[in-house]
């Protein structure tokens, strides 16, 4: 009897919730026919998942943004739960006859190469990597060292203790390229001003430094940051995804003594709770690059694998974010020097070099 009562009560609640008005019948098919031939843009995430607030999320935002530029774009994604899923996921989209298959992340390079060779007429794209000799894979790479160079210069100029620090999530080229640029930016500052600002956590010459071995472990980020602070650093750049949030927390607890240079997406948007500690952000504009690629493809234009896309300061593919809450704290002279430096890098009078930088 009790079960009957429960069912009845549940049924009544459900019935009450189900009393809404029915929407008008929409004639089917009229919406899509106006948009022309659909262009299926299918994205395969790496193991970070679709809402990693970084990388995959930026690329997905780009695919969706392309829909506003070209209304025939049909965005889709599939998340990979392990390295072993990359190949089946890419192949699944080949079977589904997607027009454009986007692999997000350099770690998918080998799988993309293999699947692209199997289906030579299928258009692929890859973020943060380039596949040698594959004409059907559109590479999207970023000269992040250029923007990190500017951030290093700002950090060196802003530091009061004369010590700045950086660390990475893993020792992989897309991470160390930030650290190279940062260290060079500091070195350039020292040369220009005859100062001796030190960089902790990374030595460009030996390519050795501090790594958290994780892109998610915030406690690790906290521990590394506390260690840097005790050695006297007052500006820290974590290149470690979610791990960096631990560093932001240390900075927040320091009462304004320590500040953070964020990476990938403007920290005041992607991690706004820590906006008051972000000096600036080394922005890697994945969203725009992906949007551009998808929109170009959807408009029926070819995506040529050579040269592909290279984000630089010049085309705004990489940049440093506004100083946000530090706008008043950063010296106007320093800001001017940074703008000049940016122009010099674009003009080629200041050379930024990193072994990890895409060619």
């Amino acid at each position, binding site marked *: 009897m009790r079960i009957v009562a429960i069912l009845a009560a549940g049924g009544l609640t459900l*019935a009450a919730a*189900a009393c809404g*008005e029915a*929407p008008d019948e929409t004639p089917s098919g009229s919406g899509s026919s106006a948009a022309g031939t659909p262009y299926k843009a299918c994205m395969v995430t790496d*193991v970070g998942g679709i809402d990693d607030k970084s990388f995959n999320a930026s690329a997905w935002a780009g695919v969706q943004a392309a829909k506003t530029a070209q209304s025939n774009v049909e965005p889709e994604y599939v998340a990979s739960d392990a390295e072993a899923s990359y190949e*089946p996921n890419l192949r699944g989209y080949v*079977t589904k006859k997607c027009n454009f298959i986007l692999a997000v992340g350099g770690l998918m390079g080998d799988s993309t190469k293999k699947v692209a060779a199997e289906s030579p007429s299928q258009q692929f794209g890859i973020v943060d990597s380039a596949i040698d000799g594959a004409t059907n894979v559109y590479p999207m790479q970023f000269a992040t060292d250029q923007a990190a160079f500017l951030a290093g210069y700002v950090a060196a100029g802003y530091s009061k203790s004369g010590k700045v620090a950086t660390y990475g999530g893993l020792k*992989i*080229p897309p991470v*160390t390229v930030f650290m190279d640029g940062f260290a060079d930016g500091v070195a350039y500052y020292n040369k220009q001003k005859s100062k001796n600002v030190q960089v902790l956590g990374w030595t460009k010459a030996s390519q050795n430094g501090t790594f958290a071995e994780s892109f998610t472990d915030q406690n690790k980020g906290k521990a590394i940051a506390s260690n840097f602070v005790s050695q006297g650093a007052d500006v820290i750049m974590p290149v470690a995804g979610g791990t960096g949030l631990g560093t932001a927390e240390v900075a927040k607890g320091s009462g304004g003594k320590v500040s953070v240079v964020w990476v990938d997406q403007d920290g005041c948007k992607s991690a706004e709770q820590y906006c008051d500690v972000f000096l600036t952000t080394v922005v890697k504009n994945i969203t725009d690059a992906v949007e551009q690629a998808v929109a170009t493809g959807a408009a029926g234009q070819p995506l040529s694998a050579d040269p592909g896309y290279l984000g630089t300061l010049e085309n705004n593919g990489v940049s440093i974010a506004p100083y946000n809450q530090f706008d008043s704290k950063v010296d106007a002279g320093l800001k001017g020097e940074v703008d000049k430096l940016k122009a010099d890098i674009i003009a080629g009078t200041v050379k930024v070099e990193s072994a990890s930088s895409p060619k």
Partner: protein
Amino acid sequence: MTTTTEEKAPEKGDSFAATFLRNLWSANTVTVTVLSIVLALVIGAILMIVSDEDVRATFGYLTARPSDAFTSSWNLISTAYADLFKGAILDPAAISAWADGSGGWQAAITPLSETLTYAAPLVFTGLSVALAFRGGLFNIGGQGQAVIGCITAAVAGFAFPLPFVLHAVVALVAGLIGGMAWGFLPGLLKARTGAHEVIITIMLNYIAGLFLTWLIIQKGVQNADRSDAISKPVDASAQLASIGGPVRVNLGIVLAVLVTAGVAWLLNRSVFGFELRAVGANPAAAKTAGISVAKTYTLLMVVAGGLAGLGGATQVLGTAHALTPAVAGNIGFDGLLVALLGRNRPWGTLGAAILFGALRAGGNRMQSFSGISLELVTVVQAVIVVFIAAPALVKTIFHLRAARSARLGASMAKGW
């Protein structure tokens, strides 16, 4: 598995068909297993409806226009499960493309190939758990043993320059030995000190996993061309032969069938098999009868570990071809579910592993075609096992008659 319908002779006056029907609707293992799978798929369907925003919206005006809610739910579920089937067994579109020449034969057999590819390692880890179970031990260490098997097989696969065939055999044996060693430890500790194998094997899982992540980034193991955590690739001579291209199925599944036959023989025909079943049924009585319980436990864990190690070896030599931190995936723990679903019998375990492989392969397609998260497959797999482990629940839901065979549930009640 079919014994319950056949072993009872028809009663006097009853036709064979009537007896068959009566037994069919009783709580025998086959019926309960099939109904558990059906129930799990139903629960999966409900979850799909609940998690799909568009479909949920149509339930908001259920009373105004009920047809919307039902057609949209039906469309969602039928396309999702159709994709599950197309991804796991066969895709009619690929078959017809092959028939009219617009597609290759590879695409036509890819679904089955994927199913068997995912199933192969699960057969080994499932057998490992099932065999230990029959001897009264609960081997939770399948994951750790598989990881060690991955490591030893991969290292043998890239470190020794050996000719084709021999190299693959050596690498497989290395995986076997690695797993055996990792099973020997808890077996010995259990036999000598009485330390509980569940606790020891869980701890050894952690050690194996962390050892793997440490080992990959060492010089000589790490791939020199890559700076991320990935080992050198296994030599082509050590890889398990596969058809190639998108058809990933490899010799691993053939090996899995052979090993299943071997384990069936070991369990039912060999002296050791008799001893382990005796110890599993009643250690005290087995001891009185002159069987060395300590020796049986140790040997049993060594064999179980070796099986899981082979599972790891097939994974790394058959599909992954290099060590990464997640190279073993979840095969060890999935092996537990496979063994439970297979009722701890060798051939049952093989069948269960193929079912899990099919769900996984179909899940990939369901994810990319219907946008249903792969997690749903995990839920369905888990729910199947929940119903298997609680046969009384299935019995009540479907008003099944009690089975005359007392076997149901007996295998579940022992071991922990």
